[in-house]
């Protein structure tokens, strides 16, 4: 299923670029030879397939061999470039996912367990406020505070090894973790799932026996919803990472995607889209594995 989906991903990416009005040849030839005869000659010289499906198949064949082509802007091979920067993005998104969960899980557990008391109501409103903040404006606030309170300008690459590097690493993670706009949804989903599980009869039985409710509700009420929410929020985090990497000059995939979009660097943005889709699918694969571990019946679906 995952392989079939990635095939679909490659096809969608190809179709979008195939339908685009701009011609990659113009970018390649730096707009020097837009006339028909010259570009036809260039196409023949580079042995470009004529029809769309042969183009797609040859492109797909190259991708399967790991050859995403070279970036128009830098001339470097796309795949190694994207993999090099995607490590940074994975750090950023994983860190902010943990940040989001650290905030959201206690609020969700409290309000599922105790109902909507004034304290929980305050926290819930807080999550709504936080997830409505424009993320880059929030980033600017954090930068401003860090300059004026700590005297540090946090626009350094994640690879800097000075004494403040952990601080540089933490700020984008905090900003993306708070400002990715999903906290209120995460809290809401976890709370609903947990209240549903708490109302199940086996929890009632456990409570009547005096057994630990947490132990009994952990798998269905905690592990499953959390992996599910992680898997479904990875695309949002990768999207938010584009903006946050821009604010903090973080050398990641999102920043590279932005540069590629600016210079209409087709091979690069195609490669980034495919790699991002692979990361997303890996997230749902993980969710599936946890689901089957918790509930072996699910493997028969």
């Amino acid at each position, binding site marked *: 299923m995952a392989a079939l989906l*990635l095939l*679909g*991903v490659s096809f969608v990416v190809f179709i979008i670029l195939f339908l685009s009005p701009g011609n990659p040849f113009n970018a390649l030839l730096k707009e020097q030879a837009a006339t028909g005869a010259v570009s036809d000659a260039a196409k023949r010289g580079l042995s470009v397939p004529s029809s769309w499906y042969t183009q797609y198949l040859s492109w797909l064949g190259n991708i399967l061999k790991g050859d995403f082509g070279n970036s128009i802007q830098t001339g470097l091979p796309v795949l190694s470039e994207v993999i090099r920067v995607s490590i940074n993005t994975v750090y950023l998104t994983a860190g902010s996912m943990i940040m989001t969960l650290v905030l959201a899980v206690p609020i969700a557990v409290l309000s599922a367990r105790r109902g909507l008391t004034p304290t929980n109501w305050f926290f819930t409103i807080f999550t709504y406020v936080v997830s*409505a903040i424009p993320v880059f404006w929030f980033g*600017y606030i954090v930068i401003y505070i860090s300059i004026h309170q700590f005297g540090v300008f946090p626009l350094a690459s994640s690879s800097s090894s000075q004494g403040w590097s952990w601080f540089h690493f933490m700020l984008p993670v905090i900003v993306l973790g708070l400002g990715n706009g999903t906290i209120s949804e995460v809290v809401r989903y976890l709370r609903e799932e947990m209240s549903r599980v708490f109302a199940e009869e086996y929890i009632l039985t456990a409570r009547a026996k005096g057994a630990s409710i947490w132990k009994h509700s952990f798998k269905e009420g905690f592990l499953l919803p959390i992996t599910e929410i992680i898997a479904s929020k990875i695309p949002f985090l*990768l999207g938010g990472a584009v903006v946050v990497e821009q604010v903090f000059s973080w050398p990641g995939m999102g920043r590279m995607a*932005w540069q590629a*979009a600016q210079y209409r660097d087709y091979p690069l943005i195609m490669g980034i889209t495919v790699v*991002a889709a692979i990361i997303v699918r890996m997230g749902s694969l993980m969710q599936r594995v946890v689901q089957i571990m918790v509930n072996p019946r699910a493997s028969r679906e």
Partner: protein
Amino acid sequence: MKKYSQISIKVSDFSEVPFWKKANTIDLICVGYGLTIFILVLVSYILGATDFLPGDPQKLNLALLMAPPGTEGHILGTDFVGRDILSRLIIGIQAYFLPGLLAIAISLILGTCFGVAAGYWEGWIDTIVTYTSNLLNSFPRLVLILLMVAAFKPDIYYIMIVVGITNVPAVASLVKGKIQFLKQKNFIEAAISLGLKTRSIIIKHILWHNCRAILIIQATLGMAEAILMETSLSYLGFGVQEPTPSWGNMVQAGSNYFLQGNFWPSTAPALAILFTIMGFHLLGDGLNNILEGKRNK
């Protein structure tokens, strides 16, 4: 006689009591706040469309740069070239309103069609719809939009088409789940056995009577989504372009002065975004709790 009246009260308990009397106070507050924001947005759109503004949104006033709110003649102050922030905020709605509606229309119409097809007929149609939903969910939305921007041009309508299409899976799965739930109910079976047309069962009995609430909720969430997406893209330089104001490019332009300590030009539109998004989210979630009865205990 008394007995009959008691029975009738019980029946009316079930159906006649208006939903706002059964609802939680907190949910009503949420919906009230959201509706206020919604009406404000609507009024501002009409004010902007009829050019009925407190000041000229494009007129520069170099004598009065970055005036704080409350200045004479500029209730919300002026930005970094002395333009009236309030008028720009009001006219900034124009940038979202129609594109946002387009995104909502696409996601609702396509999502409903897919959801109905997958939920009502199941089988291979369901397989295809599930596959397409998973496929669309595999793309980070902003990356897909950047791909579209690179391939076509940075136009707000193209961007909103992508936003609409990427919202389709969410709507489709909601509608599908609702229909699978409804199909086990007796009234659908009764409608089928009475020989009603499939079309009228789907449109009247399923969509109109049972799905309009979730569709309205999805519409409000879709509007919030559209505004946030435009804001992010404005920051990246692909949103609505200056001098046409949108809230996103107002924050972006103002944030160049943020680190110097001039907060207001970017804070005003950022707060506008914050309150609006919060309004739409609370409206959607509050309506969900009230109409779908998630918290009726």
